[in-house]
């Protein structure tokens, strides 16, 4: 059997094992390892298994992933999300769909302190879902708007996924992080418009609530956003003044939100440090397990020649470069249905990044574009990690199918955002170019 057909067989085996309920990491790792063994022998596959786990994690860069997660959990303990939610509902509570819109805006602001899509989705399921359901919001709309809002944390810096892109492609992490800022804000506006259009077409999805707040109450609520604004200012100022590097920002943010949590609870007790640390390391372990096993699979895919064949096919196409962009997007959307975001990046970037570079696209722009693509994948069925998280954190209030059903307008909003990025690449490139 030729290497190429072994590679194809591996892809089929991967999909089959995942669908049969095998842990995604096991499916990736096992198909990858056996695939390697069939290409270059058992001994060679064992050598790769022996190095990949240590060498991937023995890294200063990747230390930001647990630290960004820690920061997100501390921010949750510090009540940053709760406060923010309260402030936004005072201002937008009386708009139709206002609760969903304020959830989106709250998640966007929270994203400036959290680097994790999953973490943000968890926070806002706890904060916003009960309130929306209590006020008669449609379950699909409520839960799906939270699942997609989580992705804003990845667009808006800091972002662990953007760091992953920077490492995998040797791009400037500083530029990438800054670049995500405006697209994150634009995307949150696009999502708000999507919510507004959805409830405009079907008002029953979000009943109006008549609850009046005086201007004084509204202004007073702004104070609640203070701590979060402070976190953002500390990080931005620290990076700008050269007190710490982008990689160190994770630790600084975690330490600062830890302090805020202590202040909020007037002591260490309410912070639930042990629980927080355990949650952090379990989520980190989950991410790294997927990441490393995806690397195993991607090594197999590369060695089988499938990767080169796809890359060669894409570069060899004598078509307009935007046709390639569409093809690449379709590949990501298709794979994104099956795969987790970091894994997807690890598998595909060695193929797509050189192709896009040879077509003259900017590496920073492509970083933002591809991160948005894989984040759309984070909500699409069957493997939509944000939806899993929302479902799990909802304590049985919503079912997985309901979340997936509610996602249609938001996935369309994602496509709209992709098109905006193509039409106006400056959305991503303006800030990094100005900062230089």
């Amino acid at each position, binding site marked *: 059997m030729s290497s190429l057909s072994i590679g194809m067989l591996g892809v089929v085996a991967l999909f089959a*094992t*995942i*669908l*049969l*309920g*095998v*842990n*995604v990491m*096991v499916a990736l*790792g*096992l198909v990858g*390892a056996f695939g390697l063994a069939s290409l270059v022998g058992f001994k060679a596959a*064992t*050598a790769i*298994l*022996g*190095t990949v*786990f*240590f060498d991937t*994690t*023995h*890294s*200063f860069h*990747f*230390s930001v992933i*647990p*630290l960004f997660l*820690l920061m997100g959990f501390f921010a949750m303990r510090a009540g940053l999300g709760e406060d923010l939610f309260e402030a936004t509902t005072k201002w937008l509570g009386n708009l139709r769909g206002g609760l969903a819109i304020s959830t989106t805006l709250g998640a966007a602001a929270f994203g400036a302190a959290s680097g994790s899509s999953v973490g943000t989705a968890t926070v806002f399921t706890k904060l916003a879902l009960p309130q929306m359901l209590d006020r008669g919001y449609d379950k699909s709309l409520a839960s799906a708007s939270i699942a997609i809002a989580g992705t804003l944390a990845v667009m808006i810096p800091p972002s662990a996924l953007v760091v992953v892109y920077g490492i995998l492609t040797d791009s400037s992490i500083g530029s990438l992080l800054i670049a995500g800022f405006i697209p994150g804000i634009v995307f949150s506006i696009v999502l708000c418009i999507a919510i507004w259009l959805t409830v405009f077409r079907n008002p029953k999805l979000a009943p109006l609530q008549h609850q009046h707040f005086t201007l004084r109450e509204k202004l007073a609520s702004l104070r609640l956003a203070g701590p979060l604004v402070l976190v953002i200012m500390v990080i931005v100022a*620290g990076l700008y003044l050269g*007190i*710490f*590097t982008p990689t*160190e920002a*994770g*630790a*600084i943010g*975690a*330490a600062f939100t*830890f302090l805020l949590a202590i202040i909020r609870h007037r002591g260490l007790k309410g912070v639930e440090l*042990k629980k927080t*640390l*355990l949650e*952090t*390391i*379990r989520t*980190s*372990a*989950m991410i790294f*397990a*997927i990441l490393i096993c995806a690397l195993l699979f991607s090594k197999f895919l590369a060695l089988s020649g499938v990767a080169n064949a796809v890359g060669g096919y894409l570069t060899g196409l004598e078509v307009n470069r935007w046709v390639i962009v569409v093809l690449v997007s379709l590949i990501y959307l298709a794979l994104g249905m099956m795969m*987790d975001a970091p894994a997807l990046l690890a598998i595909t970037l060695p193929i797509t990044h050189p192709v896009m570079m040879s077509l003259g696209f900017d590496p920073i722009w492509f970083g933002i574009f591809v991160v948005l693509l894989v984040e759309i994948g984070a909500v699409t*069925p*069957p*493997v939509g990690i944000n939806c899993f*998280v929302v*479902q*799990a954190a909802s304590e*049985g209030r919503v*079912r*997985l199918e309901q979340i997936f059903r509610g996602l249609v307008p938001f996935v369309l909003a994602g496509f709209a955002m992709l098109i905006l990025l193509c039409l106006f690449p400056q959305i991503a490139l303006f800030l990094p170019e100005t900062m230089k």
Partner: protein
Amino acid sequence: MKNLERLRASYGVVLTQCGLLAGILTFAVMCLVVANALLRFIFNEPIAGTLELTESALPLMIFLSLALTQLKGEHIKVVLLTQHFPAPLQRFVKVIAMLLGALLFAWAAYAGWNMAMKSFAIGELERGSIRFPIWPVKFAVFFGLALLAIQFLLDAIYCAMGGKLAGDEAGEAQ
């Protein structure tokens, strides 16, 4: 079955201890990186070895918590198809899935052991502004992989005997 449940529970205690150690390390790394940045900025005196220590702490953080995450059923899987299977078939598929996990991580643990022994044999050092032996970290990677393989095996047996695993409820697949 009772014995198995007891075994699983006490194994879980070990895993939680490992996880706590990983959590404490995460917190320590946070403190170290912050202290290093502040001392570097204010006194021009970075803490020698911050980069090397952080780099070497990460494998410990990850591999000490890998098995705990499996115990809690938090490694991602897809049950969209299998949840419609009849119960006996569902259990059969689940047992196979767990056995495959045990196979992969047993293989990885074996490979990790070889690498750790090799590193130990040459006395491999982490070298930078400070130096320390790196082979203990490689043994920790082996240890974490082995713990996970064992957890998968326990889960397979438990599931085969009719036990319910964490993360199996209501089609959730977190």
